[in-house]
């Protein structure tokens, strides 16, 4: 097939080659203008090509998108990011040690979740993807509760049914995560449409990965959101990779993912996803649009998946080792630390203390979570729970199957 004229996109570098991030168009911090959130589309369109950045090379906040957050807020954001990272590291190790069956880290992408949450109200609804644990942590879910889900134990909010990381929380307005990519995107739009229909002020935000934008649900979401001007924020987390395939295989080669927005009639903003302040600022901008009835906003968060896709993955098979060290947008945690330091609001001691606090918090929670059981040890969920919640009420035929299983297990135990 030497004659093929098909264009096959490639990543800039494969294992053994030198990492090359020259394709990432990085605007200098502070240069992108900040149009009015209600400005006509033509006046916001440049945002889909430039990159909104607030933190400059000296870690100072500059330009019109600077959200002017108080140091205490920045510290809180840092705390949530560091806690997320400590949690990720501990759980990754727990999987490696065989304690949980599966895990997915968000390392390097913590700002995407934590800063966005901080720019929204607790009453706003969220439809997360599986790599948004920063949302759950910054919304105040207890680490031990997250761990119980990972362990499928007696306190698992999912009653042992979901793969690890598929959390939810009714109280914290976090919808149940799906194993099927992108399905949450149009659901979030429907949620937001309902909010508008009821005349309520609550808005909605949702997230998916660069790779997931290829699914039909991404298209449905943009389409319905724009037609009905739903109060929703649509976030694309472009971490450059979808398992082994590079973002060009989702159509990121020619144009940014943000530019899909204007194609459908809504603003698309490209933002430095590792810049806590920039993520905060664009989320705030989009939230204002949603709350004032101006409609949806598509945000592309440019970041890098520093970790393996999941514990089942080995990225050294498909991308250069240490590629993340060349990533031009750095690390969100280190950058926020440096910013706080540049404000004089942060010291090495504070940083060490916070790191230790996070680690202890996580270790403490892990110990507690284990007391509620693991898949193999300790207290166990009653298998009869398997037949609950298929429907609101158990049907006669499910009741029969439940009893059949009980008999099976009784005999199994007798052996």
């Amino acid at each position, binding site marked *: 097939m030497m004659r093929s004229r098909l264009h096959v996109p490639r990543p800039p570098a494969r294992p053994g080659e030198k990492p090359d991030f020259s394709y990432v168009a990085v605007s200098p911090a502070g240069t992108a203008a900040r149009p009015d959130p209600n400005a006509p589309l033509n006046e916001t369109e440049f945002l889909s090509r430039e990159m909104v950045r607030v933190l400059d090379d000296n870690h100072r906040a500059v330009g019109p998108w600077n959200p002017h957050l108080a140091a205490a807020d920045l510290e809180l954001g840092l705390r949530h990011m560091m806690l997320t990272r400590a949690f990720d590291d501990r759980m990754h190790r727990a999987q490696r040690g065989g304690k949980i069956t599966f895990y997915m880290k968000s390392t390097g992408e913590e700002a995407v979740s934590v800063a966005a949450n901080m720019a929204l109200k607790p009453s706003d609804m969220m439809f997360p993807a599986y790599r948004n644990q920063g949302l759950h942590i910054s919304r105040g879910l207890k680490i031990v509760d997250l761990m119980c889900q990972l362990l499928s134990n007696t306190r698992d909010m999912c009653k042992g049914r979901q793969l690890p990381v598929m959390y939810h929380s009714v109280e914290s307005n976090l919808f149940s995560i799906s194993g099927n990519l992108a399905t949450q995107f149009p659901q979030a739009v429907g949620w937001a449409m309902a909010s508008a229909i009821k005349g309520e002020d609550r808005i909605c935000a949702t997230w998916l990965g660069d790779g997931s934008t290829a699914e039909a649900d991404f298209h449905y979401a943009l389409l*319905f959101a724009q037609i*009905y001007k739903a109060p929703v924020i649509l976030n694309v987390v472009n971490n450059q990779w979808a398992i082994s395939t590079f973002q060009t295989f989702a159509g990121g080669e020619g144009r940014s993912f943000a530019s899909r927005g204007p194609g459908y009639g809504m603003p698309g903003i490209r933002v430095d996803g590792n810049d806590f302040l920039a993520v905060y600022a664009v989320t705030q901008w989009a939230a204002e649009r949603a709350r004032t009835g101006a409609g949806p906003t598509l945000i592309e968060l440019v970041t890098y998946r520093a970790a393996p896709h999941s514990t089942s993955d080995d990225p050294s098979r498909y991308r250069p080792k240490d590629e993340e060290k060349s990533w031009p947008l750095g690390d969100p945690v280190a950058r926020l630390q440096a910013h706080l330091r540049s404000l004089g609001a942060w010291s090495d001691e504070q940083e060490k203390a916070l790191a230790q606090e996070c680690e202890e918090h996580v270790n403490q929670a892990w110990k507690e979570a284990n007391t509620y059981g693991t898949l193999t040890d300790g207290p166990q969920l009653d298998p009869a729970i398997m037949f609950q919640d298929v429907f609101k009420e158990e049907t006669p035929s499910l009741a029969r199957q439940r009893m059949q299983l009980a008999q099976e297990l009784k005999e199994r135990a007798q052996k």
Partner: protein
Amino acid sequence: MTQMNMIQALNSAMDVMMARDPGVVLMGEDVGYFGGVFRATEGLQRKYGEHRVLDSPIAEGGIVATAIGMSINGLRPVAEIQFADYIYPAYDQIVSELARIRYRSGGDFCAPVTIRTPCGGGIRGGQTHSQSPEALFAHVSGLKVVMPSNPYDAKGLLIASIEEDDPVIFLEPKRLYNGPFDGDPNKPAVGWNSHARGDVPEGHYRVELGVADIVRPGSKLTIITYGTMVHVCLAAAEKAGVDAEVIDLRSIVPLDVETIVNSVKKTGRCIVAHEATRFAGFGAEVLSTIQEECFWHLEAPVLRVAGWDTPYPHAFEWEYFPGQARVIAAIKATMEAS
């Protein structure tokens, strides 16, 4: 009581529910200003406004996905898919999401969405306006599946479905919209006005899901069916002159096993009839249940009467459709078997 055809009964069900519950919203292609290509939502947008009766883009997957989202936010959406043949773009949202949101969230979230869609043949719709896909939903845990055969049931079942906190796939045999149809396309069409089940209360009432209806009592043979085939089987039983008990399932999920089993234990002979393709159709589940539960009572093999294992062809609609002749042949075979 008022005389209603099935369309009017469905319209009345939605009207009643919209009046009672401000959370009930309708959405679908052409359902708003136009009132739906089969007119099921006629007048409702005028009455309840453009914000509760939404014209949708032609995107079945988007319709179901946004309906799910609405339901999570406390609404009770009733989505119309214009033809059951066009429900497949929404299949992922139905099977992977709608059916399992309650389960996967440990009961913390639920998605009370009703999906209405016209199904079945008999209107010369060819292979893309005639399908009966009930089996493709029945196999999916977490979905309820309903198919009425008359205006009274249609309204009562639709009200019950909208009130359900579980998702319901509500299949409407379009050939029955304007009148009962006994399978003979050459007979003059009759309306629902001469049919007992065309008498429909104007207000709120429920026909419970999971309860089959014995539409003709009998002692020698049980015929289990649903949708358009109810009328075909009744006519065939009459013509065959057999003392047959005809059961209209109404609900496919949950299935009323008790009514089925009681009848077959009594008669010892049984036919299962549906319009859908036979192979791996829902008839196989009914037959299997009977075989498992009534084996020692069976005096003859249970037979299936169904559409052929081909698409539904435009020109051969009446050769494809499992009409009276096919049912009568099965009745004879069952009664003569020994």
